[in-house]
């Protein structure tokens, strides 16, 4: 269809006349304009309504994750991760998997690895850090030559006590509460934290 378009809503001419209808002249009177405006308003409102209702329902559906408290990898329970004997006496960090029951949407997975922690034995105490970098969520590495925790993604660097050592990370490494129970068992309270912000916010 090739029409010369102008911006006036006038009757267009069709190159194939579809029937022999006489063109009705449009009488413009105040009443007709009013009626026309009411029709336009109603048509616009109803048209918007039929689209709006399902769209809003769908968006509410989409917002579902905001309404549920995640009960997956992190909660307040302490988990046994290893024994004191398994940690080197000189305080060298050791990476350990955290194993626990995992609930993911409709599924329940018993005893799954849900994350990792670095453990250091200092005397009869244990220091525990979440292995997730507080910068943007890569896993940090224990760098032996630097004697530091180092993130290979964006070069975050932390001392072995977890203090940040350059400007990349927004905060220190996320330390976790660790307890020694029954003289030898190492229990930690495993939690994940929001990345990229100076505050330590539990997820």
């Amino acid at each position: 269809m090739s029409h010369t378009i102008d911006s006036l809503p006038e009757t267009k001419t069709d190159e194939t006349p579809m029937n022999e209808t006489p063109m009705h002249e449009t009488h413009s009177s105040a009443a007709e304009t009013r009626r026309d405006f009411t029709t336009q308003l109603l048509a616009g409102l109803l048209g918007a309504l039929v689209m709006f209702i399902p769209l809003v329902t769908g968006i509410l559906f989409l917002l579902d994750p905001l309404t549920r408290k995640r009960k997956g990898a992190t909660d307040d329970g302490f988990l046994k991760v290893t024994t004191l004997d398994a940690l080197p006496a000189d305080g060298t960090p050791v990476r350990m998997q955290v194993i626990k029951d995992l609930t993911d949407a409709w599924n329940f997975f018993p005893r799954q690895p849900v994350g990792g922690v670095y453990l250091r034995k200092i005397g009869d105490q244990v220091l525990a850090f979440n292995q997730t970098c507080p910068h943007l969520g890569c896993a940090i590495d224990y760098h032996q030559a630097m004697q530091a925790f180092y993130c290979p993604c964006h070069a975050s660097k932390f001392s072995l006590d977890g203090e940040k050592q350059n400007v990349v990370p927004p905060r220190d490494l996320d330390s976790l509460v660790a307890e020694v129970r029954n003289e030898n068992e190492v229990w930690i309270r495993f939690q994940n934290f929001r990345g990229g912000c100076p505050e330590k916010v539990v997820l």
Partner: protein
Amino acid sequence: MKRLIDWADHRTGFRGIMHEALFERIPGGARWRYVWGSTLVFTFVLQMMTGVFLWMAYSPSTRTAWESVYYIQNEMQYGNVVRGIHHYAAQAMIVLMAFHLMQVVIDGAYKAPREINFWIGLILMQIILGLSLTGYLLPWDQKGYYATQVATKIVGVFPLIGPQLQTLIQGGTEYGHHTLTRFFAMHAGVLPGTLILFLVLHIAAFRKHGITTPDPNRGPESKFWPDQILKDAVVCLAVLAVVMTLAIWVGAELNAPADPAEPFFSARPEWYFLFLFRFLKFHAVEQFGLAFGAIYVPGILMLILFLMPLIARIKGGHFFNLGFLSVVMAGAGALTVIAMVEDKNDPDFTHHLVMAERDAHRVQVLASGPTKIPIEGAVSLLRNDPLTQGPRTFSKACASCHRYNEHNGLGFPVMDFQDEKLFPAVETAADLGTFGSREWMIAVLTDYQNHFAPLKNLKNENGEPVGERFLNGDMASFSSDNREALLAPENKGSLAALVEFVVAQSGREFTPPIDADLVKAGRAIFETGTLKEGVIADCKSCHSLHARGEETALSEDGYGPNLTGYASAEWLKSFISNPGAEEHYGDNNLMPAYAEKLTEKELDLLVRWMVGDYYRSEEAHAAEAVKE
């Protein structure tokens, strides 16, 4: 503002497009009969919207499809509404499509110069039917699974390339992960994409020739905007209202998860394919083979539909077309009604429907329980559920002699087939509906002969009755001799105590719970037979028993059945495996041994069902407590 719009128009020409889209002329004025095309566009947009939202939560694989749909339906906020809209709008689309087609044919809008547009419309119809068919499988429930099997089998009888085509569509010779990934890609990608393409062509071709007006002089000419749009919007709102009402108040169905090993006898296609389903069942159709009824006949009807614009050129052709469409519509309608009425009056179908609904409900109770859904998928919930499998095994293995509350375990009567007729089967062993309960124990103690009366019907190979050995046995004598004493009002407490002691041996959970003091009192009666008023024969002389929780056996060397752990899951397992064992009925036994007839798992689920060891939701627990 105006300058901004002018600038944008100069760069894009959007005013022209808007003008083109909105100010289509409608000779004779806007009319209600022109709304059908617009309602179809609207429902399609509705499907695109809800479809994309559902897409964000759906997971196509045989172990996650049902599960994710369950999660959408029951756990996610407004999930049931979004899925409900998608489910019912799909059906609304079929109805609206029929209206649109009829209006086009009645008004002669398919004739020259609009033939090509009519053909494009018919292609759109095929795409929509394809969307319905692919979407039906995606929840991976029993209904969709078995109904879609029929469709893919029909593809398999296609001439020449049938088997290859079927394998390609299914992603393998059998249904599996790739059936779902392929169906999903078709449903959410290929088909909607093609539909949009043809819809654009359809609307463009429609605008080229304008609307077909049966009566152009009916009134003053109006425009698409706002006159026709207002009417369209009103009808769209009505469609939306119907769809939302159904979505919220009826809800989209979700059957039990697909299980190739579990038949689904109530499988039916969606209602708009019922006519074809019923058509294929006619003997006259069947005898020509599946390809005839499922491919050639529908193919020929579709071909005539395609030829309509050409037929209309012949004199009287338009009336032939009208007649043809009316006959097809009426025929399809009649077949649909016939199929529905037949199903409604078919007791077998009704039974299967009840079973299907029971499984569907049960699996959702299990999935919402604290253990959620295991990685093996929801189908394993039902396979490992005593409440689901126990009654099935009972109906298969036990119900030929026993009953369960007068039925076969599944809630249906047991029938025999003789002389070409079905009639209620004769029971030849006790009704086990109350087995191991207090009620059961009272009946055994005080009403043995009645309680085991069905044994009268049991005959050996020579046709001689053999139940007498129980009905005139020692326990029967005990029951008739001591019935009066046990049922005397002053001995009410004594009877309750004895019953409590015996049922406590099972270690089952009871409502109300076991009363430890009563158990203690009952133990004494078991040992001595001393009731509150009078003395009866004691139990320990005949029955060996090592009472639950005690260090040493209460009695040994009894010649009757050993009551240690009586009616517990372990006892039942041992009894069913070999009822003729020394510690059970010994030489008196009349029941077959099932050790070799049932698998360990079947037996385990059967007895756990019989002793009530299965998951109940908290509400079900509460409801049971109230009932007791």
